[in-house]
């Protein structure tokens, strides 16, 4: 290789050289992703005019390596009906739980089978979630939302409701969030510890 072409490649070479390491780090640790759509309002993308989209930091380590799934986590998963689509939803029920689905669903109560989870979007009417296709295999879950990166006004960990000293929520948004949380938990009966999937 002549010295002229070596110089031209020289500036881009470190980037190309370390690209595989970078990709593996993104794949196994944290990755920022853009969240689109209205199905997680008002937690994510609260602006209905869709002028901007939230960008969140997603944690792949806890899913691929530690395999920790908790009820209430917001996760991104591959859609079971369309392999090209990623959905961002909240895990509402894990295996063994009895879930009362909201909205149009053929059954009144669903027992989540072994290795599956019940996921729902926070916004009931615009959400493509387990209410449409039932429990999803946990193997489809790809990453967990850790914090928001954009917009600046809401950057940071997702807001937990603030409480005053005597236990009542401080703001109207907190009360609404608490109400939604309670509605979700009311519809799920957790599996007992002696649940044996087989």
């Amino acid at each position, binding site marked *: 290789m002549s010295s002229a072409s070596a110089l031209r490649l020289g500036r881009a070479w470190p980037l190309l050289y370390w690209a595989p390491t970078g990709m593996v780090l993104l794949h196994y640790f944290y990755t920022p992703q853009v969240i689109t759509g209205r199905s997680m309002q008002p937690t994510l993308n609260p602006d209905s005019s869709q002028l901007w989209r939230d960008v969140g930091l997603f944690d792949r380590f806890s899913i691929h390596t530690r395999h920790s799934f908790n009820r209430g986590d917001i996760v991104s998963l591959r859609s079971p009906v369309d392999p090209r689509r990623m959905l961002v939803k909240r895990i509402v029920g894990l295996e063994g739980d009895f879930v009362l689905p909201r909205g149009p669903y053929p059954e009144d109560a669903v027992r989540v089978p072994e290795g599956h989870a019940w996921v729902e979007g926070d916004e009931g009417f615009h959400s493509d979630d387990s209410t449409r296709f039932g429990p999803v295999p946990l*193997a489809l879950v790809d990453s967990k939302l850790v914090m928001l990166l954009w917009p600046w006004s809401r950057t940071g960990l997702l807001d937990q409701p603030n409480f005053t000293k005597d236990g009542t929520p401080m703001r109207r948004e907190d009360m609404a969030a608490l109400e939604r949380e309670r509605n979700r938990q009311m519809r799920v009966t957790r599996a007992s510890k002696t649940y044996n999937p087989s």
Partner: protein
Amino acid sequence: VVNVACALHLFGEYVGRISLMEGPSMLPTFNAHGDIVLENRLAIRLNPDNISRGDLVTLRSPIDPNRIICKRVLGLPGDIICVDPTGEKAPSTEHVVIPQGHIWISGDNAAMSRDSRDYGPVSMSLVQAKVVARVRQMFVLLS
């Protein structure tokens, strides 16, 4: 060195890799222990609908997220499939319409296979790779 390891890993994830087979559910196509096969991941990554009936695929198990299984595709979305003609795991007249985005998988060794007869159609999003070739067992003469 780290970089080379990462590059190899990414190649294995996205393009293709060699894997070890284990388990009796695909006899006589694969031996119960020790078979090595070549997987093609690129075909699935580029076009997830690239699966046809009769393909051997590796996929993540729908009942255990940490487990990878290898089975044969019998039905595509929209097909009507008889769940178990032998009548062992379901009445032999039971038929199922495979929903959109799902496939019906089956092990070649039906007697010792946990497959779609047990857990129904599985989502195509779980499929990771197509199995294209078997590397012949290298040490069969020495055993």
